[in-house]
């Protein structure tokens, strides 16, 4: 798999979707440089446990990974997962754009021929 560098645009788009401000910041921090949870906890003036909980949520989403270094665990960002998720959601968005366009066509037809009800096509062509 080819790993590309994230462009600032891609990073912006992806982070836009991250609902929690603290978690978004954590991802941003650890993408730049792996950090220990205690370092992160100092940054947010939060308890170790609270940050650990946020990191666990990010880890489950594969947005970060944890690696042990001595007594500490370092949190690393996973740009590949972020990119992949963003790209896939874009593809799914495209499917929905197609669908909305097709629904519009159907609704426009309904207006011009309000008599078409929900019969089977066979019944519709009957005498």
């Amino acid at each position, binding site marked *: 798999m080819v790993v590309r560098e994230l462009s600032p645009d891609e990073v912006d788009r992806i982070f*836009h979707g*991250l609902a929690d401000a603290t978690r978004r910041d954590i991802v941003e921090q650890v993408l730049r440089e792996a950090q220990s949870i205690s370092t992160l906890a100092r940054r947010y003036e939060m308890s170790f446990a609270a940050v650990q909980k946020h990191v666990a949520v990010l880890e489950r989403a594969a947005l970060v990974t944890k690696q042990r270094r001595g007594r500490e665990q370092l949190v690393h960002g996973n740009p590949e997962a972020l990119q*992949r*998720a963003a790209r*896939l*959601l874009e593809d799914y968005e495209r*499917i929905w754009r*197609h669908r909305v366009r097709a629904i*519009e066509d159907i*609704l426009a037809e309904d207006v011009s021929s309000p008599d078409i009800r929900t019969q089977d096509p066979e019944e519709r062509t009957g005498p």
Partner: protein
Amino acid sequence: MTVIDVRKDPQALTLTFVAEFEAPVERVWEVWADPRRLERWWGPPTWPATFVEHQFVVGGRSRYYMTGPEGEKAGGWWVITAIDEPHRLEFDDGFAGEDGEPNTAMPTTHAVVTLEAAGSGTRMTTVSTFTSLEDLERLTAMGMEEGMREAMGQIDAVLAG
């Protein structure tokens, strides 16, 4: 087109899609409730859907298949989990084998559809939730091909013009 908002949350693996239509809520509800209308928009353009069963009640099952450009068929199913006509619909959407029975090894998506009056028209909000990134990848494989073809077609048109 009247797509007014798209919110992607790669962390929660949800896609929220908001669109507005120039038609009353009851008519937009029909494109979900009526299988003959539904099958005209559910599949990607080159993979039209055919609904062979559509039990539009809570707990009801739908069975459909989509036919690809080479005549290949991809089966799917819904189970309706909530209905509040004509404002709210929730269902699980998954893959089916050749026999039309749900393929439990394949991913399922949960969809929540909300219709509300907006001026003289209707605002439709769909929230799709995926269970994992791998699932999302498999689900979009078909759409990606389609998107690619469409993009190439557009490039051709631009070059020809």
